[in-house]
């Protein structure tokens, strides 16, 4: 479904991603693990067109997207849940959700139906639908931004560290919800530092270090790897 080939990304002279290739198949949930600064967010930004690739190719369903703008990519079916949330703080929860669907034609038609689905995943959003997004707690905002992304009826959902900054009980809840979204046949690219939780959701994963893919494998391969056990799982 998504294919990244020989991607190089640089901010000015500083190259952040080196010759990176990965792919995500239909009905797959793929994890990208790695420490802070490994280039996970930059990879995501390159996929959704926020930063332009220096070289390499990104295709989605066979269509090259690396020269498209973010809004075109979103309309094409890739929607991102950014790390720093990027909500509309002066709008209510419901307005934020509706905006997720309003500018994507196929999502707009199903707006009411999707909003019920989002409310079933995150009942707190229904309770707070009239509250301004900017006045909610960090955890609630994280749920809202995932809800807003689902409102766009994406073909593929990209999550950039959805558990970052959440209290431990919420982290567990968050991954339970991601599992539910997965069961509803969503293709997901999940970037995480929390490998232990991430492994419960993904089908397959990559490990990124210093802007390169250091390892690729199934859940078993990743969880049995000596380096990963020591560096990420603390075993």
């Amino acid at each position: 479904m998504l294919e990244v080939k020989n991607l190089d990304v640089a901010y000015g002279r500083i190259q952040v991603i080196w010759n990176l290739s990965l792919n995500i198949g239909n009905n797959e949930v793929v994890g990208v693990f790695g420490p802070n600064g490994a280039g996970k967010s930059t990879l995501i930004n390159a996929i959704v067109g926020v930063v332009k690739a220096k070289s390499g190719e990104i295709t989605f369903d066979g269509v090259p997207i690396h020269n498209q703008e973010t809004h075109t990519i979103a309309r094409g079916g890739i929607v991102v849940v950014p790390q720093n949330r990027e909500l509309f703080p002066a709008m209510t929860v419901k307005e934020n959700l509706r905006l997720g669907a309003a500018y994507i034609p196929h999502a707009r038609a199903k707006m009411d139906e999707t909003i019920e689905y989002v409310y079933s995943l995150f009942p707190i959003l229904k309770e707070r639908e009239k509250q301004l997004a900017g006045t909610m707690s960090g955890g609630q905002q994280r749920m809202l931004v995932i809800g807003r992304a689902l409102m766009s009826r994406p073909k593929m959902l990209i999550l950039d560290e959805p558990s970052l900054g959440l209290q431990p009980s919420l982290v567990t809840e968050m991954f339970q919800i991601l599992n539910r979204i997965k069961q509803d046949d969503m293709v997901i690219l999940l970037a995480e530092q929390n490998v232990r939780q991430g492994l419960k959701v993904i089908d397959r994963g990559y490990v990124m270090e210093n802007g390169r893919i250091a390892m690729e494998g199934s859940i078993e391969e990743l969880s049995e790897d000596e380096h990963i056990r020591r560096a990420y799982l603390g075993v």
Partner: protein
Amino acid sequence: MLAAASKKQYLFIALLVIAAIVIGFWEPHALIYGIQRGSLYAVIALPLALILGILGVLNLAHGEFLTVGMYATFVLFSRFGVDPMLSTVPVTLLLAVVGVAVYLLTIKHVLKAGHLSQLLITFGISLVISELIKSIYTTQPRGVFTTYSYSSTTLAGIRFGTYEFLYLLIAVAVLVGLQLFLKKTRLGQATFAVGQNPRGASIVGINVSFVYLFVFGLSIAIVGLASVFMVPRVSIFPGAGTPYTMKSFALTAMAGLGNLNGILLAGIALGIFEAVVNAIPGGSGWSDVVFFGVLILVIMTRAIREGRR
């Protein structure tokens, strides 16, 4: 953007009404003139605030676009005998086109370049426009005379001009129009979203560059609309619009960014204030000093208060 009228705003309205009543008894002309001028300031300030709020660009060429509108109205009148009121549509459309062209040629390319580059480029645009006008029409002042623009009426023994009440009408119409646009239309909601978070807007599929283009074009069109109605009452020369840039900025700063209703209130307040200062014998030269003195005070109070937070 678009904060609903807060408690503070109601307090301000109450104070404004009380001040207006007091001034109305003391010097009714100052009150009437102040409301008229203040409304005009507000119409011109609204588009500046819109560009600043959505694009984040302080457009120093704002007043020069006003001048372009005035000359366009003047040319239509002197060459083709078109009454200024009939120029409303063509001049507004012309300015929309000028705005879009200027945006595509210049502003678009400095949106990510930082505020200093933006200020410099809009300052450059202002110089280019005023020099162009000078070379085509010289510095000789021009005017458009219409009889209706000097019509007046007498109410309760006070004689005052009626034409400039049009400014209040237009200010309210533009304000209501903008609010409806932002709240009720899809493009307006997109604009509102872009003003809060451009990256978030692009993630939900909003074409942010188009919103910027549209907002700039719309804003300059509103400037054009204002210029048409000013023409019968002002003398037209290459620097005629220039002072309105800083006045508009003053109103925007006083109202607080994104507070469109506040701009009309601030405009009327400052209009009355200015008229009162002018009404004091020997005070006429002081109005700008007072105007910008108030601005500096407001900005400083706000800065100190935010610093304490």
